[in-house]
């Protein structure tokens, strides 16, 4: 059974801090790892990673995949209160073709 574990489950930091969110996985026939940001409604897509060691960046957010360690990190620099959300990690594997999600990291940015 495919498994995705995120850590920490919750995190409270101050505006301007840098945060690192972790995602580890066990899947058969790994295809891709995705990061989503979920605020009040549906998850919105952030990154998709398929190749190890290649960093993807979008503004203050970046993510990298380590296939050897079966893990990925999501970094957010110079955090803002608008970054407060649940960050979901999901993996597409060889099982059911939907995504297997982690439980999410609830990030709270305090002013």
């Amino acid at each position, binding site marked *: 059974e495919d498994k995705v574990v995120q850590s920490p489950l919750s995190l409270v930091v101050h505006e301007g801090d840098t945060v690192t969110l972790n995602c580890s996985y066990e899947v058969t026939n790994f*295809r*891709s790892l*995705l990061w*989503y940001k979920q605020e009040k*409604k*549906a*998850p*919105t*897509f952030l990154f*998709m990673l*398929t190749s190890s060691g290649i960093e993807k960046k979008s503004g203050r957010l970046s993510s990298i995949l380590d296939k050897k360690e079966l893990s990925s990190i999501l970094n957010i620099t110079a955090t803002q209160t608008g970054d407060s959300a649940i960050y*979901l990690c*999901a993996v*597409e594997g060889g099982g*059911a*073709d*939907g*995504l*297997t*999600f*982690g*439980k*999410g990291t609830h990030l709270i940015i305090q002013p």
Partner: protein
Amino acid sequence: DVKVTQSSRYLVKRTGEKVFLECVQDMDHENMFWYRQDPGLGLRLIYFSYDVKMKEKGDIPEGYSVSREKKERFSLILESASTNQTSMYLCASSPTGTGRYQPQHFGDGTRLSIL
């Protein structure tokens, strides 16, 4: 922009009722998915579909069925609703593209309460 629309934002039904949740996407995506989201459990896949009239069970299909009569529409059916099906339901779609390595796009969700 991809638009995935779920017919109801909030829904309240009674135990034993047959419940229909509708999802429509406007980007001609081949793949459509239904998930439920529960606190502490994350998102779990119920059913998915690769094409019209095609369906596959996900991780937790018990108590649910689906229908895909048209490419843009994917319906989730609770045959006889029970209180343990109270949850947030999310629909998603994705194109097939090269391989299936395409991100899924989600609707806003339907918060279903079964009384």
